[in-house]
Structure formats: structure tokens, C-alpha cells
């Protein structure tokens, strides 16, 4: 029996639910092609960080100005070089090149921090040929004066501003740190988010004991981390009019199956592809087919959300009691 692995995400038809999320692997046409050849269904390009672009432009500007006109003998210390295009230009080129090289949808990802930057860049992504835009929202409210209301409104405003100027679908990749996440999800969808990508993982600072310094420390995800997304996908499935993508911890066939059952329209992966290479996509796809075949599932559509909160026999399992029950069963095993 042939199994239909196809799914729809952000209104895009995907040949299967496996999507490469933003990582160095999606940063070159060469590796994108390898992902596609291995069977990936869509790709999310690495995030263009508005702050990074600004930083680079200002750093070059400061460099060119550095030491200039301080002495009658030197107007400056560097020849005026024309960068071969700003970071934005290079990114737009990557979108265009990826579109040209790939048959699968290409999703551009944007990490902005100003309203102007979001809309301006999103528009350029669309013009460069992106099939969809993923907004990678990151705002850490470290200022004690920032209220949760203001932070939430900021998210809503950002989504709304981008939605207002782009025709392609817009997904929002968010962190789980909201007091009322379900409500936040609904508000973002209400202002035009076509999909939600759950959840963003951030590079957390670490303390280097040898150097006695604080430094960012990138750790790849593990399967255990996926359960946070699994819970919220299960809760949101059927409750918001938007696609849902699981990200952060999908490594194995089992991981993929679980979030699909919870209600994800697709599963995004980075860590496992970085660790095992693009060929891992093939193994995952085969594993999904095998499992579905063993359980006589005909299609991904059929099984998607079949264990969501709405559809599962024990909806409370996704709620607070779930924690109680877990502890109870854990202790009872050794009682």
C-alpha cells in the first residue's frame, strides 16, 4: 500500500512533513540541494538578523572613519572598499538562488527588532521569491519596566505590520515564555499569522570556568525537549486557524510521529541534520512510512492530530494534571 505522506503547511503543499529549519545547512545552495535530494519537503533559510546587519554596516562605517582626518599626513587608514552587497543583498541572493535550484518551497526567515526593519525586509524577501516568511521573534524583556502586556502587544504589532505588506504566508516562530500562550497564539493568528512554529530555542549564556567569563554557548537539542512543543501543538490543534510546525528536539522517527499525532502540520529539524547529515531525512521518511504502514495509516492527513487534546481519549493528559499523574505513576512504580 502506498502511503500519502503529503501535508499542507502555510497553504503550501509539502510532499512530506519533514522541513529543514534554519541552520547552517540551509545557508548554501549546495547543502540545500543535498537536503532536497534526501527528500526534505521544504526549507527554512537561516534567519537574517536585522541587528546583525545593522551591526556589520555600522562596524564597517566606523572602521572607515576610524583614525580618519586625525593627522595632516593621513586622510584615513583604509581604502574605501565597496562591500559586495550588504548582508541583506547576500540574503536576497540566497533566496533567489535557492528558489532557482530547488523544487520544494523556500521559506525565508527574519529576525528583526524594529517595525521598519520587519516590514521593509519582509517585502524584499517576497520580491526575491520566498514562498513564505518565517518571523523569528526574539525579545528578552530584561528591563523591569517592561510589562507583559507591552511585550505581547509588540509581538502582535510586528506580525500585523508584516502581514499588512506581504502577500506570501507568514509564520511566526515564538518562544514559549508567555503567561497565556494559547491566547497569544490566537492573537497572532487573528492579525494574520498563517502558521506558528513552536518553539524557538535560544542560545543561552554559559559561564566558562577556565576563563571566568560569560559566553554564549550553543548546545544542540535533544528529543526530550520536543515535548514542550508536543503539548502546545496538541492543545492548539483545531483551536487556531493556522498551520502548526513543531521544532526543537525532533530527532527520530518516533519524535516526528508523536508531533504529527499531536497535530503538527510539519516537523522542523536542525540539530539532527547537523549531527547526521542531510541523508538522515531519508531514514526518517522511511521510518515514518514503515510505522504508518505497520499501523495501516493511509496518509499523514489521516493521522495528523489524532492524539491532539481534542481527539485524544484523555484530554487532561495535556493539562496540569499530567504533571501530577506523571509523578504519581513514577513514584508508584517503585513504591
Amino acid at each position, binding site marked *: 500500500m502506498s502511503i500519502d505522506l503529503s501535508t499542507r503547511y502555510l497553504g503550501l503543499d509539502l510532499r512530506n512533513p519533514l522541513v529543514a529549519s534554519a541552520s547552517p545547512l540551509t545557508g548554501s545552495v549546495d547543502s540545500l540541494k543535498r537536503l532536497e535530494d534526501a527528500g526534505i519537503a521544504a526549507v527554512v533559510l537561516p534567519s537574517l538578523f536585522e541587528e546583525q*546587519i545593522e551591526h556589520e554596516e555600522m562596524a564597517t562605517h566606523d572602521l572607515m572613519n576610524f583614525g580618519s582626518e586625525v593627522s*595632516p599626513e593621513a586622510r584615513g587608514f*583604509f581604502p574605501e572598499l565597496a562591500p559586495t552587497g550588504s548582508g541583506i543583498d547576500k540574503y536576497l541572493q540566497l533566496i533567489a538562488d535557492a528558489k532557482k535550484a530547488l523544487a520544494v518551497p523556500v521559506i525565508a526567515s527574519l529576525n528583526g527588532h524594529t517595525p521598519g526593519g520587519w516590514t521593509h525586509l519582509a517585502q524584499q524577501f517576497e520580491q526575491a521569491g520566498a514562498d513564505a516568511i518565517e518571523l523569528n521573534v526574539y525579545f528578552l524583556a530584561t528591563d523591569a519596566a517592561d510589562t507583559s502586556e507591552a511585550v505581547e502587544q509588540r509581538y502582535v504589532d510586528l506580525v500585523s505590520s508584516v502581514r499588512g505588506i506581504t502577500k506570501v504566508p507568514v509564520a511566526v516562530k515564538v518562544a514559549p515564555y508567555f503567561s497565556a500562550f494559547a491566547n497569544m497564539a490566537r492573537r497572532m493568528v487573528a492579525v494574520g499569522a498563517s502558521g506558528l512554529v513552536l518553539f524557538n530555542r535560544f542560545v543561552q549564556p554559559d559561564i566558562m570556568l577556565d576563563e571566568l567569563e560569560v559566553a554564549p554557548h550553543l548546545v544542540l537539542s535533544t528529543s526530550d525537549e520536543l515535548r514542550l512543543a508536543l503539548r502546545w501543538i496538541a492543545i492548539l490543534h483545531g483551536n487556531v486557524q493556522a498551520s502548526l510546525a513543531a521544532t526543537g528536539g525532533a530527532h527520530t522517527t518516533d519524535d516526528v510521529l508523536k508531533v504529527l499525532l499531536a497535530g503538527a502540520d510539519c516537523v522542523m529539524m536542525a540539530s539532527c541534520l547537523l549531527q547526521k547529515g542531510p541523508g538522515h531525512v531519508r531514514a526518517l521518511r522511511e521510518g515514518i512510512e514503515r510505522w504508518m504502514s505497520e499501523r495501516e495509516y493511509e496518509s499523514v492527513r489521516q493521522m495528523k492530530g489524532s492524539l491532539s487534546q481534542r481527539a485524544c481519549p484523555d484530554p487532561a493528559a495535556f493539562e496540569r494534571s499530567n504533571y501530577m499523574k506523571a509523578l504519581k505513576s513514577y513514584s508508584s512504580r517503585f513504591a
Partner: protein
Amino acid sequence: MSSENNMTEHWHVLDGNEAAARIAHLCSEVIAIYPITPSSTMGELADAWSAEGQTNLWGAVPQVIEMQSEGGAAGAVHGALQAGALSTTFTASQGLLLKLPNMFKIAGELTSTVFHIAARTLATHALSIFGDHSDVMTARTTGFALLAASSVQEAQDMAAIAHMATLKSRVPFLHFFDGFRTSHEVNKIALLSSEDMRALIDEDLVKAHRARALNPDKPVMRGTAQNPDVFFQAREACNSYYQAVPGIVRKAMERFHLRTGRRYSLFWYHGSPDAERVIVQMGSGVGATREAVDKLVAAGESVGLLTVRLYRPFDVQGFIDALPKTVRAIAALDRTKEPGAIGEPLYQDVVTALAEAWPGAVKMPRVIGGRYGLSSKEYTPAMAKAVFDELKATQPKRHFTVGITDDVTHLSLKVDDDFDTEPADVTRAVFYGLGADGTVGATKNTVKIIGENTPLHAQGYFVYDSKKSGAITVSHLRFGPRPIESTYLIRRADFVACHQFEFMEKLDVLSLARPGATFLLNSPYGPEEVWSKLPRDAQQTILDKKLRFFIVDALTVAGQAGLAGRINTVTQACFFAISGVLERDAAIEQIKESIRKTYGRRGDTVLNRNFAAVDASLAALREVKVPARADSRFSRRPVVARAAPDFVQRVTAMMMDGKGDLLPVSAMPVDGTFPTGTTQWEKRSIAQEIPIWDETICTQCGICPLVCPHAAIRMNVFPAEAMKGAPETFKAVPWSRKDGGPLDNLLYSLQVAPEDCTGCGACVDMCPTRSKTELKHKAINMAPKLEHLEAERANYDFYLKLPEQRVPFDKIDGLRGSQFRLPLFEYSGACSGCGETPYLKLLSQLYGDHLVIANATGCSSIYGGNLPTTPWSRNAEGQGPVWANSLFEDNAEFGLGMRLAIDAQRDLAQHLVGQLRGAIGDALADALLQSPQGSDETIKAQRERVKSMCAILERIDAPQARQLIAVADSLVERSVWIVGGDGWAYDIGYGGLDHVLASGRNVNILVLDTEVYSNTGGQASKSTQRGAVAKFAAAGKAIGKKDLGMIAMSYGNVYVAQVAIGANPVQTVRTFQEAASWPGPSLIIAYSHCIAHGIDMTTGFSHQREAVKSGYLTLYHYDPRLGMGGADQPLKLDSRKPTLPLEQFTMKEGRFAMLARADPARAKELSRKAQTDADARWTLYEQIAGVHRTVTEQGDVPAATHAAPPEAE
């Protein structure tokens, strides 16, 4: 421009260098370049244009090549010409002298070329980077035609005419314009297009030039040797070509006029048609003279100016014809000096021309000759008037000077400073800024905005002080309805802006404001508060002159716009808003457009932030309601302390106060000899933050004083009783070294010199000690200066009076011991955080009292020797380093000469001691001849012995005794150090350096290796690393760095070390001592970070560690002593095998990272090769370090004894 011009032009604002370089680039196929101020820009532009692919008139991109010296550039041009290419070069000053030998050849071979010269003073009693004609006048005998341009417009137009005429005449041309006054003045000029140049350059002549090329298909030879039988005749064979030149230039000028509408002539007369008094002059000074002529003629005087354009060949009849027949008296003004000549060159030419060709029927005019404007000395219309007045006298001075006060030979003319020629419809604005705040860039932009977008003409000229950190800049801008040719500084400004509030206490910024002028001050204080923060004299001036007073808090506005520290956009917007030069809204639009043009390639962020700053500026601009009276209780600070010595009070202080022009001749040393140790009197106080010591956690390691580039952190130990009278805030703690004996019970203090610190923060960055409870807190921490200034000033005064400033050890004790020694190189004007100066300071600490330095031209000669104040100092006994600079190219030879002289005098003295042994006494004579001298104590003892001997000799009436007294000091050890940068050591001075290394003599060579020509703005040298972007290597240097150390090691008997003081300070201190103690030649290559690397200068020293970790730099020393008798391997590696990928180091530097942005593929490829270089270098060194090498004792090292290397710490 000097003539009528009614045709439609493309107006652009540019400087003289760019104006000339554009034409040169269009008309050349091969361009050989070498940096030298003020002509470097021409080479930089040509290189950049070719790197961008800009083509010449024939559609090819000119080949631009940097050579190892100007001599090399001239040789390359000569070769290119012989091979048929159209070729050019640019230079100035001593650079032109290096080209002279080739110029004789090029002219002798009747080869068409144009050399473009930004005329600059030749170094004589002192170096000067500024402008006069002493360089071009040395080229008079080469056979080159000399064509003078007197303005930015002419720098372009004469360049074109020179290129036209040389092709026709076959005589090579030297086209010159005044350094700085024209080369660096920005002015609005009518631009020649490529089409214009195509129309002006005759293709047949180009073909003829090519046809004369050496070509194996039509073989000929040139450069033969000729004998007495034919040389003379052959030399005369070119005469007809020279006779034809004036006619050819005249025709070229006519053709140029037809094309452009601008009319020029060989000699151009301006003034009263029946003038009786005429000034003959060439160069930029004619602008000022012309203004004087116009005003005097309008007042009814019969005066005129004859401008010389074609100076060689001198067209005698053309000159006579150009003079009004009514002329009775002529003053020939020369911008050069020829000591001992009857008169300067132009004067002599005028006299000769009159003698040869003045019509017999009319009485020949009287001619007097005057010098003006040496080294860019101001030359004003008032001075021109003084010359005209002198011509009226019945017995005028036959030879005179103007612009100075000569109270010795009384040659100078008196000048009426109130004579003002500037018309009322010209707006004059003066801007005071810091080099780092972007003022010059912004004011240049302002000139462009007005010049290129309005019918107004515009001019900008920029004056800098001689410091590299905290440099003060003054921008002089004029805007008016006619071309602006006022070639002198503004004296009465309609608008004065002061972009740094602290200048109000340092400078008399309002002295140039005319009554009723507008004053804009960048002020952190609001309109209500600012008045009370001004010194009383400034308040009074504002009141007296009835100035309109505006303020803006530019730092805050810029910071809020994301342009921290770059206040230029803000102040520029404010200038337009209140100066009234342009209508306000239009001006703001123009600023934005200009920002778009200037920064368009740098990205939207840069644009948007600058736009935001412009908009916010206007909102932040406030007019101050000026109170009725001056009520401040403080005034401008005195320039120097009362304790300063007489010379500093009389002379140095005047220069520091910007009044050096007022010093008379009698104030100047006659031979260029100046006292040392003068920076201590110049309290510049430029730091915002200074380091404050936390004595509770300090380990007294000595790193912070070691790396302090400005000797602004000192450490000392002293007896507890010396604390008597210490200020309450003065800190001292028990000295940590407890090794028993008399050194116990001493106190230790670490003290900052708060007004000499530049605030670089290198000390804090390098401090290894952190607080256990708060890791960011170190044993030394930056803190706001204003909070600590008063206390630390008192503390430092007290510290300097502590009884013993010398180390209480009898030998130098490694890193820490070196830092207890008094630095005799202090408070230099080097860049904040400079990577070079700690090495020099260390040198002065180790050997300062008997140190002899030959210093190559470059950064170290500027921060080391540029007046008004110099950092080389002296100890309490009055001993200290002696320092001299000869040239750029000959420093190794210069230092070797010093060594030879010292050795010769020592030999003579020793010989005389032997002869006079009977009178001196055997014991003293033996001690004088045989005592070792390797430490403070032994040198001190020898000095005592010399003193005793001289006392004895004074009582002896014998010629040998007198002779011995004269050379007695040479019996005391002298440590000779030859110091310079990589431009000198790797390039221009390499031949000499190599020869000195091979001499076997006891000299120490210290190369301050910044891997670029730092002083002239970061041009590539052969030390520049592969993949680094530098000027003249705009596409990233394609080949690797020359291994100078390895070349030196090849001699076997040369001590060689490569050091990086930030990476391994202990090794640095040790190798300095080893080099000094090695009695043969030594070479230390000292890695020096530099602002030209594009790094954060605060972390420059700690960044050096990564240079070593990544294998970018390998630390080593090669000590021939270890190879004596083949006992050991002389090369020792002092750094470990690299553990970091090279890119992790290089990508932290702008010079490498920039290429990665501009050309990622090339950057990647060069980076890969650079990694291979580094790997191969390490492997090679590692192998050599394992090789036993025998260094032959006999004959390799002249001294009989080989001092042992000092023990490693």
C-alpha cells in the same frame, strides 16, 4: 582660476591632489607610486581607481605599482617609458630628491612624461611636511620642464597642459602645486571630462611616443657610455627641443582655452596696466597677492602681479613682454631658501632675464628678492602689500623676508595686519574639532554640498595639530559668489563653531570671530546653564563682539541616533540651520543627499542613523540668551606651569598656544637643536576616563606601566618616611618583595599621571588581577577623570617628588624591575593605545642615560620629534637619550655612522689615556680602560672616573689633555639603537639595513613593525600580511610578509628576536637586554598593533596574544652566543605551537575582515594561503630551532669579549 571663463562646466568640489591625479590616471598606462606627504593621496587615488577598474583614455586600466622607494618609482617609470608606455609618478620633498638621478636620464633621453609634485619643504635643520618650493627647485638642473599651478583648478588644468606639452615637445614635465595649500585645499572647480582630455591629447604624438620604445623588432640601444670626444656635443644636441618648449606650451594653452574657455599663459600679468611696482611669483601665493593688487589698484596705486607658470625652460622674451612697460621696481618672491646664493632662483632668473632682454631705451627696473611662505608659513594680502610698500622705498631691502619677524639679520618686512581684502559677500566659517569627531570630514562635505548644489563657490582648508591622539583640527571654509582664491587662513569669521566643549578652557576659539558673528558650541549643558560653564575671557569676548550664541548637545543627539561619538552630522546640520548660507529646508535636504552620496555604499543603517541625527539636531539646537555681564570666576588655563624652564616659557609655550608665528628669528636655535623632555609641560588632559589603582588586590606585577603607551602610569618603591607630606589620597602599600636585607620595609606605589593619560584603557585590559567578588573589577580600573582629577593631580605631583626615582637594584630585574626604572620617553602624542611606544619607553627605561637613537622618519619620528613638545626626556642627573632623525631611507646607515663615531672617539680617548697615564695615574687609567660597563652602577662608576680624570686633565697644560677632555665622555658606554618602522626596515631602508647587519658592528636595530606605513595613512609595505587590505593593496595583499628575521639570521652573527610585548612581556624585556649585550649587530622585530589594523586599541595588547596563539606571529630569539663553537642551537622559539586557526585572529581585525565583506571569495582564498604560510613558517622555525649551528668567533664580531646573555626571568 586666473582668466575669463564663460563656458558651461561640470562643477565639482575636490582637492588639488585629486584634481591632478585624475588627469594623470586618464593619461597613463603605468603609474609607479610611493607614499610621502602631502602627495600620498595622488598615489592612493590612482591605486583605488585602478583597483575599481577605471580606465585611461585608451580604455585600459592603468597598472599601478607601489615601489620600495621614490627612487624605485622613478626607475620603474623610466623603464616603462623606455618600453613605450605612457607613465607617471607622484611625489614631494625628499621623495623628489630620490627621483633626481632618473630624471636626468629621462630628460637626457628626451622622453615624454609628467611627474606631479605636491611641493613640500626639504628637511634641513628639521623635517617639515608642509609646503614650499625647496624640493622642486632642486629639480631645475634635471632638464625637466617645470610648470607651476597656483590653485586647485590649475592643479587640474596645468596637469592636462603638461601631459599635452610633453608629448609634443618630448621634454619631460614636472608639474607642481603647493603642498597642503593646494594639494589639500578643497575648492569648486570646472572638471575636465575624459572627452575633453581625448580632444586635447594628440593621438599621433602618443603613437610617436610608442614608436620610440625599445623594440626588439627595431633594435636600438640607449644609455651608452660616452667619452670626451662626443659627450659634450651630444649633450648640446637637445637644445632645439628646449627652445621649442615655451612655444609648445603656449600653443597647448591656446588649444586648452578653445576647448574649455579657460585661458592661461606662460606669464600672466594681473593689475594696473601702467603699474610701476610688480611682484613676480608662482604657486598658491599668487591668490593672496592678487587680492592685494586688486585692493591697491582700486585705491589708485599702480601695482601688479606677474604669475609664472612655465618656470623652466624660462622664456626670457615672454617674461619681458608680459611685464607692463611702466614697471620701475620688481620684487621676485621665492618660496624657498638657498643659503649662500646671491638670491633665490626666481629672483636670479628675473634679474638675468631683465639683463638679457630689457629694451635698452627704457631704464631697467630695480629688482629685489624676497622669501615667503617656507613650510606653509601663512602668506596674506597684507604681506603682499608690505612687499609693494617696500618697492616704494628709495632704498628697499635688496633681499628680504616677509611673514616672519627677523630680529637677527633684520631682513623681514613690517606687515600691517589690519590690511584686509576679503569682500563682504564671502561667508567665512571656522570649525574647531577633534580629529576623531569627524569635523574635518563633515566640513569637507559642507563645501561639497554648497559647491556642487548651488551657484556659490566654496573653499575648504584644514589645519591639524601635530598630535596623533587628541589632535585638534581647525576647518576654514569660505563661500561666495565668485571663485575663491584666498590662499590663506580665515582671520575674521562670520561663523565660529566649537565642537568640543573642553576647548573653551584650552583655546581662544573666539579670537577669529568678527563682531556680530554667530557662535555654535557643542555643549553638554543647556541654554540656562552653559554661560556659567564658560571661562570668563570667553564670556567677555561674546559680550564684546556681540556674538549670537547657539548650543547643541551633539554627543547626546548623535548617541541617540546610534552614532556614538560621531557628532559631525549633528554639528553640520546645525551649521546649515543657523549660518544662513542656504535656505534651511533646502540645506537639510542637501545634507541628506550628501549623506546618501557619501555613505550610500555603506548600507541603509548608516544612512538612516545619519538622517535621524540630522532631524534630531535641529530640534536640539538652542539659542542662548546672553547675559549682560561676564561673571565666571575662572579663566583659560595658563599654557604651561610656572616651573617650566625658560626656553619652554619663552618659546615652547608660544607654539603650544598656537602663537608660534609670532616668535622672532632670535627665539630659534640656529641649528635645529632643541631641548629634550618638554612633553611634561604640555598637560593635554584629553582622557575622559583614567585608570585608578586598587592597591588592595594589586600584585605589583608591573604590566600596566609596561604597556602604558604614554608613560602615564608609574610605579616606584621608597622608604616609608618619604610619605611625609603625602596628600591624603596618595596610596602606598608595603612592597611585596620580601627578600630580606635593606630592601625590606619599602613602600610601593602605582600612580597615574591624570593629565597625560589618553584614556586608552590598555592598562586595565592587560591587568591580570581580578577581584574575587566582582570579576569585572581589576587591580586597576577606568573611572571618570573629572571625579578624580584634582586628587590624582596632587598625587602625581607628590609622586614625582619622591626621593628616588631609580630602581633600588644594581641590575635590571626582568619585567618588574624594568618598570621601577624611570621612563625617559614620556607623554608622547602617539595615538591613544599605540602599540609602538611601549617598546621605546622600555628602551628608555633600560638604557636611557646612555642611549643614542637614530630614528627613521615615520610615526616614531613624529610622536618622537615633532614640535612643540617632544617626549624623549632626561633623569635627575640631566642624562638621557639623544635622538636624531636623518631621513627615511638612510636610518640604518645614520645609526651606524653614530656607532663608528663613538667607537672612533672611544679609541682616541683610550689611546690618549694611555699616553697620559703618567698624569692620570695608573690605577685610574687602568680602571678607565678596563672596567666593565654593563649595569647602572658600573656605568655610574665610569662616569665618576671620567669626571676625576677630567679634573686632573684640567690642570695639565698639554694639547693631548685638551683633546682627551673633548672626547672623554666617549669612555662611558653608549647604547646605539637604530629605530624605525616597517616601511623603513622592509622597504625604503632595507638595502642600508642589510648592509649594517652585515657590518658586524655593535648596533641595535629596533623595527616597530605595524605591517603598514602607519604615518602616511596605512599603505602596504613588504611587511603587510597576505590578505590584509591596506592602501596600495586595496584588493587585499596577494603575497605574504617578508621574513626579515630569517634574512638577518642568515648572517649567523646577528642577534635576532621577534617580540610582541602584549603576548610575552617577559620575553620582550629579556630580548632587549640580550640584544644590547650582544657586541655585534642586533635586530629586534617588535610587533606593534596600530589603528591601521582596524582593531579596538583598548585591547590591542591582549589581542597580540591571539596573534601568537594563531601562529600569525611566532616569538623567537636567535642568539649567536649559543652557536659559539657549535655548542647549541642558536634559534630558540619563545612561543608555543599555534592552537587557534589563523582566521580566528585575523577576522577580529578590520584590515582582514573588510576584504571578507568586499570580496568574500578572494578573502577566503587569501585566508587559506595565509594559513598555509603560518603552518609552513612554524614548521620551518621548529626545524631550524633544532639545528646546531656554528657561529665562527673569529672575525664575525669585532669586540673581543662576548658578553653573556642576561639570565632569563
